[in-house]
């Protein structure tokens, strides 16, 4: 069983470990600094992206000896002087997600303002994916969370083929490459955007994909928490059908896919966009075990009275067994389940607002 969790918060990075049967905070780093993304790689390396309010985005790496050092941060190339039409800045806003690339030393970083970056040396250096950045459609990507910058929130690597990648963009749908990023296609069909003018609601690029999650053992199965509902794809993100059985609401940010069972996934529903709080002040997790035909609403151990915790898109995680889950909230709530979500416990801590939770590989 996995026994270690990394929790990135508004005020630092916390390590939570299973000690004598209970989960407890065992380490705190970067106290006071916002952590925007974290990755615990299979070789024992931990990466933490900081989003410093004054001094920009930074990336730190912890080696096998648990020593932290700052490594290179992705940077955009010089913007051509004659390019005045790009609505998005050519400067790193923040690192939103870091994923292992399936090849030794390779990492992918999804960022605001929508640049995808690759490292082949464990974060020592980064290069912008030019093919995606220079697609004319990229200038139509819309901002996220009321801001002006789009963001790549999900990077899904096919475990069978590291050149086969899907990304989820807020707000620009699902994009695919099958040649390690040399070329890209906007692939999503079947989603709808209620917030758009009627004639544009089915436009693939208008879809606000909050988060994607892929079944590791069946990579063609991809789940999506979208601004307007939850969706499932059986063809690696090309066609989607809505899962209308989701309860208690269809809005939310996070989704986690079972690593082996293609029919199981977890969501954290909330009241939709105007409010962004749990329904009836109750924190619940919605789990399907039948490909979305039905959902169980799980609440044992979660706060059920006057709870206004929102769970951001990177703050729900499942381990490699599919049994251990972690859930972190904007109110600093952290809950862990060891039985697939049936029941949850909370480590003894009052944490800052949580942006991301990530299990270390067992």
């Amino acid at each position, binding site marked *: 069983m996995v026994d270690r969790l990394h929790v990135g918060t508004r005020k630092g990075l916390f390590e939570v470990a299973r000690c004598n049967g209970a989960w407890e905070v065992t380490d705190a780093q970067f106290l006071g600094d916002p952590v925007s993304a974290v990755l615990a790689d299979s070789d024992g390396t931990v990466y933490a992206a900081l989003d410093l309010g*004054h*001094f920009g985005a*930074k990336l730190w790496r912890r080696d096998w000896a648990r020593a932290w050092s700052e490594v290179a941060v992705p940077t955009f190339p010089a*913007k051509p002087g004659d390019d005045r039409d790009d609505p998005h800045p*050519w*400067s790193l806003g923040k690192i939103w997600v870091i994923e292992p690339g399936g090849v030794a030393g390779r990492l992918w970083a999804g960022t605001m303002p929508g640049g995808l970056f690759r490292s082949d040396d464990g974060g020592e250096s980064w290069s912008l994916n030019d093919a995606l950045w220079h697609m004319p459609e990229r200038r139509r990507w819309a901002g996220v969370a009321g801001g002006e910058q789009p963001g790549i929130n999900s990077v899904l690597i096919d475990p069978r083929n590291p050149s086969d990648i899907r990304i989820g963009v807020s707000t620009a749908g699902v994009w695919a490459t099958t040649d390690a990023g040399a070329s890209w296609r906007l692939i999503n069909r079947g989603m709808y955007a209620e917030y758009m003018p009627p004639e544009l609601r089915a436009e693939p690029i208008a879809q606000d994909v909050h988060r994607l999650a892929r079944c590791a053992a069946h990579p063609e199965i991809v789940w999506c928490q979208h601004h307007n509902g939850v969706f499932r794809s059986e063809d690696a993100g090309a066609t989607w059908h809505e899962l209308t059985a989701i309860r208690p609401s269809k809005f939310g940010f996070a989704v986690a896919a079972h690593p082996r069972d293609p029919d199981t996934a977890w969501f954290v529903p909330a009241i939709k966009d105007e409010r962004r709080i749990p329904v009836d002040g109750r924190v619940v997790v919605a789990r399907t075990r039948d490909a979305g035909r039905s959902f169980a609403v799980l609440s044992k151990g979660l706060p059920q009275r006057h709870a206004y915790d929102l769970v951001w898109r990177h703050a729900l995680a499942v381990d490699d067994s599919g049994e251990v889950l972690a859930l972190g909230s904007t109110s600093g709530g952290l809950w862990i389940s060891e039985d697939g979500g049936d029941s949850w416990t909370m480590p003894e801590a009052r944490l800052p607002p949580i942006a991301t939770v990530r299990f270390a590989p067992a």
Partner: protein
Amino acid sequence: MPTVSFTPALQRFLSVPATQVEGMTVGEALAAVFASRPALRGYVLDDQGTVRRHVAVYVNGEPVHDRIRMSDPVGLHDEIYVFQALSGG
């Protein structure tokens, strides 16, 4: 030579003592500091080489006029101070 000093808030991340450097403009003076401390550059400038939105650069107690090219002239006895731009709270 102008002196370049940095806010203590930066010392949490990297060692940046006040230094005297060659330079006829703010940009040249900062470039001279970054040449010897490359890791510092990304804390002060964005990817396009302009001063970060929430970083302030003052010369002798006055904010610089040109935050993009940093062309403000500096003399031998001028003091450049780089610090976080506070926005209240």
